[in-house]
């Protein structure tokens, strides 16, 4: 049996550490923690970007591609902002250009796009003339408002959360959108997206 360096060692120079079960225990514990991390990070699925498995994925249920999206306005601590038909907060990405998304791959997994199968419906407080759609590289249709492509945030687990407000990710900031079609810059957060506070 080949045992690498160990066979060449003399009894006096073989490291005592190697014989200690503590080393093996620490190594195995580290592997265990790592495996647990793999398990917890691989939960979730869906999203419009790549995701799933080891890579992780979005836990945000986006609008089904076959459904027509609805965009409404609702009052929050950040002011009146855009949400989807179920009250989920919608965001814009500062790096996007007019009717053009700069978010794909891992970005779109963290910030799932608001998809629609056709012209989105304008809910209360929203100007229908500002609503539109763009075709993405993966052939999905993304809702836009005032030519800003709209996204969800993976860190929002339900309606009424704005954990993505002010987050700096993928090279620019993310903001909630007001009914006038602009970014709401207040309440910028430096907290983890998993938090609940959105500032004021």
């Amino acid at each position, binding site marked *: 049996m080949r045992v690498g360096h160990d066979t060449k*060692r003399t009894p006096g120079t073989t490291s005592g550490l190697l014989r200690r079960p503590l080393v*093996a225990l620490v190594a195995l514990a580290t592997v265990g923690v790592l495996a647990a991390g793999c398990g917890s990070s691989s939960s979730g699925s869906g999203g419009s970007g790549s995701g799933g498995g080891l890579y992780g994925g979005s836990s945000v249920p986006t609008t089904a591609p076959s459904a027509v999206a609805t965009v409404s306005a609702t009052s929050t601590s950040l002011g009146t902002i855009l949400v989807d038909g179920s009250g989920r907060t919608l965001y814009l990405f500062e790096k996007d250009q007019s009717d053009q998304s700069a978010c794909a791959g*891992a970005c779109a997994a963290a910030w799932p796009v608001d998809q629609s199968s056709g012209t989105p419906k304008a809910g209360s407080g929203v100007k229908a003339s500002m609503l539109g759609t763009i075709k993405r590289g993966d052939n999905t249709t993304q809702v836009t408002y005032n030519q800003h492509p709209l996204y969800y945030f993976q860190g929002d687990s339900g309606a009424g959360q704005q954990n993505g407000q002010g987050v700096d990710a993928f090279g620019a900031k993310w903001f909630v959108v007001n009914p006038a079609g602009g970014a709401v810059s207040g309440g910028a957060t430096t907290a983890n997206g998993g938090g609940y506070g959105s500032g004021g």
Partner: protein
Amino acid sequence: MPALDQDSRASAATVPPGRGALARSAIVSWVLRIATAAALGIDAVVHWQNASAYDAVTGTVSQGELFRAEAALAVVVGLGVLVRPRPSSWLAALLVAASALGAVLLYRYVDVGSLGPLPDMYENTWQVPGKLLSAYAEAAAVVLATLGLLTHRTPGWNRRFPWAATGRKRG
């Protein structure tokens, strides 16, 4: 019988480690090597898969290019500890994992802006696919590579790495 006692002592002093001890050492070594390589492999996969989303974050080099370089380095040093578990291999694995972990923590919590040729990689969220997993893997690789380095001191270790030698003064 003094002569016999001397022989016994001499014999006992030269008895090589038993098969059990060698087998245990080999098992510990393989556990460390495989676990370190696996941790670095996770780091590599996450960085490689996320790289394209960061190509637009540019300085002299883009963040995407840095991610690909990190992935390549992690693969190389991971294979190094797996195939040739020398102190230099463990040291390389430790440096790659520690620098990656340091970078992800720095840019998560401190907005340092652009640094020299590096782009502004500030990102105040863990909500990026694989980011937290990758950080855990890097931390694990740091621990494992340190253990690997400490447990692979061969007879020539102090000669080749005098700066890390214990129990003797420099120069």
